[in-house]
């Protein structure tokens, strides 16, 4: 069992181009709360990323992230798929970091703070969220499996298949 890391005192690595992370923050913000986050929040996401997500991505992570970049429509499905399957956790962790950044702002407080909801309304909202989640989970799990399967095949095998296709 790894040592619990309570106090993180080392600074984030310097010299890393944060532009891709700021663009990522914008995509994630639109997905999570339906709005492009401010430059300040995008920058905060990039800094948080540097502190919290330092482990190198696995091949499966890279494949999932690349697919999500190239096909923005797939982000909800990949989120659901990786949550269910548990492999390639980096996308999920990135989304959680962005969630934390958004949550710690006055603009999104009401979205995250518990409120008083009547039982019928609660049942309706839970039902709606649950149904949406179920569809995404089914499709997402299949998509994650397909994307990571391609990643496991590797570039050599994919080139070989492409060569055979040209014959």
């Amino acid at each position, binding site marked *: *069992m*790894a*040592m*619990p*890391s*309570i*106090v*993180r*005192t080392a*600074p984030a690595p310097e010299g890393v181009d944060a532009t891709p992370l700021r663009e990522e923050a914008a995509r994630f913000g639109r*997905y*999570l709360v339906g709005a492009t986050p401010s430059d300040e929040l995008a920058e*905060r996401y990039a*800094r*948080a990323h540097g*502190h*919290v997500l330092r482990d190198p991505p696995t091949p499966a992570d890279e494949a999932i992230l690349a697919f999500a970049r190239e096909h923005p429509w797939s982000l*909800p499905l990949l*989120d*659901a798929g990786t*949550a*269910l399957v548990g492999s390639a956790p980096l996308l*999920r*962790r990135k*989304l*959680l*970091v962005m*969630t*934390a*950044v958004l*949550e*710690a*702002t*006055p603009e999104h*407080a*009401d*979205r*995250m*703070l*518990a*409120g*008083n*909801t*009547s*039982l*019928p*309304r*609660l*049942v309706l*909202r*839970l039902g709606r*969220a*649950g149904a*949406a*989640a179920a569809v*995404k*989970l089914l499709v*997402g799990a299949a998509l994650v499996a397909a994307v990571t399967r391609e990643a496991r095949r590797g570039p050599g095998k994919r080139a070989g298949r492409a060569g055979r296709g040209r014959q």
Partner: protein
Amino acid sequence: MTAADERADAIVVGSGPSAVNAAYPLVEAGLRVRMLDVGHRDTTYARLIPDGPFTALRRTDREQHRYLLGDGFEGIGFDHIGAGAQLTPPRQYVFRDADRLQPTSSSTFFPLHSLAEGGLGGAWGAGSPPFSEVDLAGLPISYRELAGHYETVAERIGISGTRDDLLPFLGAQIAMQPPVAIDSNGESILRRYASHRRALQRDGLYLGHPRLAMLSRAHRGREANRCWDMDFWSDEGKSVYRPRWTLDELRRSAGFSFVARRLVRSFAERPDGTVTVEATDLDTGATESHRARALVLAAGTLGTTRIALRSLGAYHRRVPLVCNPHAYLALLNVGLLGRPVRDARHSMAQVCIVHAPAGPDRPFTVGHLYSYRSLMLFRLVKDSPLPVPESIAILRDLSPSFAVLILQHGDQPTPAKHCALEPRPGGDDHLAIEYSLSSEEQQRHEDVERAVARGLRRLRCLRLRTIRPGHAASVHYAGTLPMSAHDDELTTDRDGRLARTRGVYVADGSVFPSLPSKGLTFTMMANADRIGSRLARVLR
């Protein structure tokens, strides 16, 4: 080596709950007391947090990300839930540098220890039930000897609670304020308990208000809890007891001095009857020597043990170690779904639960129930198997009905639980810890957890999952220098005096040979007050 200033009557090592309560009677007796500790403080976050309720700050404060997430984003983590999992960034200074300056090694036990001013009391849960005669079995002191010190410490730190169904288990307390009002979650559970009391008690389950070192009325310059739900983040108003409130009182006395940035390494007794303490000045690296007529070690069980073993040259010697095993039961209070909940609340335990099928005169299990309110939602989303937006929506609606029951099991010494000081190359040393539970112990714990979960179902609280946060998660460590009626090496006598020494006393958890299910801290403070009082009579 440089000499520190004039000789003290007593040196106290540490500044946590036991240290300040051992020092207090010594200072009251007019003795010169010098306290040595590293003494970290929160120099970053406390000043950032505005006054106001948690929900109001969330809606208005543009700088909230600094203390909610941390400047180094230390509030965001993906580790397995373990010791200190609930610590917010403003509380994490409590553990700064402890691993680096007091290294331990283990494959099964990852302790939290503190070099902060106020010690672990800077982040504790404030649970303060006294031990009973049954809990003190095996010690050479009785409840009667501690009773007066419980009252003294209760007045000093401020305890709130009430006489309810838990009275036979938590004991009577004269110096007790009324309880701070519990939240809607706790209220609904206690209301249902009242309707099913007889059946639940037949099954050995009792519920009531917890005993907390938290004020419901102003006391000794501290305010009553404002029910702003900020207790995990801020100490504004000082309603929850922190040892540094007592340290501030001690500082007002001319005979008391607190020397910070000092890591105590060892002690040695001199032929003239005095004790010298060797400490490293962490700012300069210089070694200092402090001398006094008596030494009180109260640096926390692991810190004190390290100093004692090093000073006595007891390398490779195994000493026992006990620690309360914890289980976290994540619960959904179904009976609260769709009902309005109050915003005004305190953050500490709302309900105390006792599982005692054999009654109060046999060992029983105590749990404290917390609502999940003033913590961040993303921490729940992390464990959700659903897409993030749907997780947010669902958990936001369900979170008022969430609760976490922290069940604390007792612990007895066994051959599988011990630590030893081992030298390392370069002159340093580390504490090597071995700790494991037998299959019988684990089975006993699981049986209790199942019984408690069954009872909670009757109260319409469904168990969602059980989390085992790891052996050291309770941060209640004891047993390394146990109190004994025999003058065996590496034990302490009934006055806390370390065996084979003349003037070295131990006043923290090290002296308790076993741990009942109840939290140790209040009893540790009462015992420290007792040891300090007895030492004051000797030194005067």
